[in-house]
């Protein structure tokens, strides 16, 4: 067994012991075995809601990454745009995007839209600023090659700046992927009829703490799986 699993098992054992000793009532903290049991019994229900959250996360990630890359490339090619958008990007970094969830719901309704937008907003800033920083920090001696060749901005971008910036863009994407499922869930909290966030709220209202924890576990698993997938894909690309 992997050595990394031991701490997890230890926490689960402590958790089980605490609930068995009746330190906390089950509606506050259900025993882990009960959570796993619920996870199994309600797998159809949970799976259906998980699919919704996964779809929102996936769509948001794709849109956010595409937007972030486009923004970074555009600001690199057009310094005037950079002066315009640069401070905005820096400012947006300071804004916790989650506070926009009610506004997005107001604008985009209760469907998938606001959740996808939430995830995309969470993704676009780390990707754009990571890639932008990378594009702006190509070493001067490397840029000398472009000057010697009298290369156009576009050719310099494609052959020198972008390859140099990819690792920083990838680092931005790694950060973004960690937040993405959380973005979808928070979007669902604000207003939804599907998704793991919605399921958590429903379970909470009905005192089904076991179901809430089961949904929580699935969110955790989803986040870990997405991180893993991103890491592997990027590693295969040498990033």
């Amino acid at each position, binding site marked *: 067994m992997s050595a990394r699993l031991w701490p997890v098992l230890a926490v689960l054992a402590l958790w089980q012991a605490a609930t068995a000793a009746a330190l906390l009532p089950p509606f506050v903290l259900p025993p882990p075995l009960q959570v796993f049991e619920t996870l199994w019994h309600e797998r159809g229900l949970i799976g259906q809601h998980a699919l919704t959250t996964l779809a929102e996360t996936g769509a948001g990630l794709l849109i956010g990454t595409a937007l972030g890359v486009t923004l970074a490339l555009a600001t690199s090619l057009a310094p005037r745009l950079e002066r315009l958008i640069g401070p905005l990007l820096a400012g947006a970094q300071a804004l916790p995007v989650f506070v926009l969830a009610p506004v997005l719901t107001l604008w985009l309704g209760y469907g998938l839209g606001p959740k996808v937008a939430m995830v995309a907003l969470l993704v676009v800033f780390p990707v754009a600023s990571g890639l932008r920083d990378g594009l702006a920090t190509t070493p001067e*001696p490397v840029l000398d090659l472009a000057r010697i*060749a009298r290369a156009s901005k576009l050719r310099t971008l494609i*052959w020198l700046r972008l390859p*140099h910036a990819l690792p920083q863009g990838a680092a931005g994407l790694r950060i973004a992927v960690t937040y993405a499922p959380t973005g979808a869930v928070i979007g669902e909290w604000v207003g939804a009829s599907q998704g793991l966030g919605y399921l958590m709220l429903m379970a909470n209202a009905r005192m089904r703490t076991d179901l809430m924890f089961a949904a929580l576990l699935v969110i955790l698993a989803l986040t870990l799986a997405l991180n893993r997938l991103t890491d592997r894909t990027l590693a295969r690309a040498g990033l």
Partner: protein
Amino acid sequence: MTAAISGQVWLGERPLLRALDLHLQPGWTCLLGASGAGKSTLLRLIAGLPVAARLDGTRQAPERIGWMAQGDLLQPRLSVLANLRLMARLRGETLPRARAEELLAAVGLAGRGTDRPETLSGGERQRLALARVLADDTALVALDEPFSALDAPTRAAMQDLAAACLVGKTMLMVTHEPTEALRLGHRVLLLDGAALHEIPPLPGPRPVPLDDPQLAQAAAGLLARMRAA
């Protein structure tokens, strides 16, 4: 004459070069000087690269210039072949496959086209950088201490290879190595006191063999002069 530069070069209020009048002919011109004397600045001025200094005079140089820097400037995310083609890509030109293979073979990297630069040794990397300059096929090549980061045997081998591959072109090379300047230089210049001083070159073909007794003697004399400067 391939290129020329004349006038004065100023770094703020300080003159880096007074009464500069340099005409470059085919063959190697090696430029020696203490750190901060302005030899790299002069090289960059001729190559048309940005410098902190200001030229108060005229510059005449071809449109196409080759460039070899102290670092190999290989792009880690591009293959050996793509690195060889880099200057052509930047110029919006194409380098035919056959020519690329020929150049790789010329610098001893035949069959390494699909490898990544990280798999090359220090000497191989600099040989690829040389092949990139050859692929660019320019009449004038500017070299800024291209071999200074290499170990002594590799450096000597690179000097031999560069001398053989670049025959017929005009080279201006900045170096801080008197031996290197004397081995390669058809003309050797010492930048000192804001002026260029001609150092008599060694007789015979280039590169001067390392075991040539005149080389060691002339290098020692040149070093003494540089220390006194």
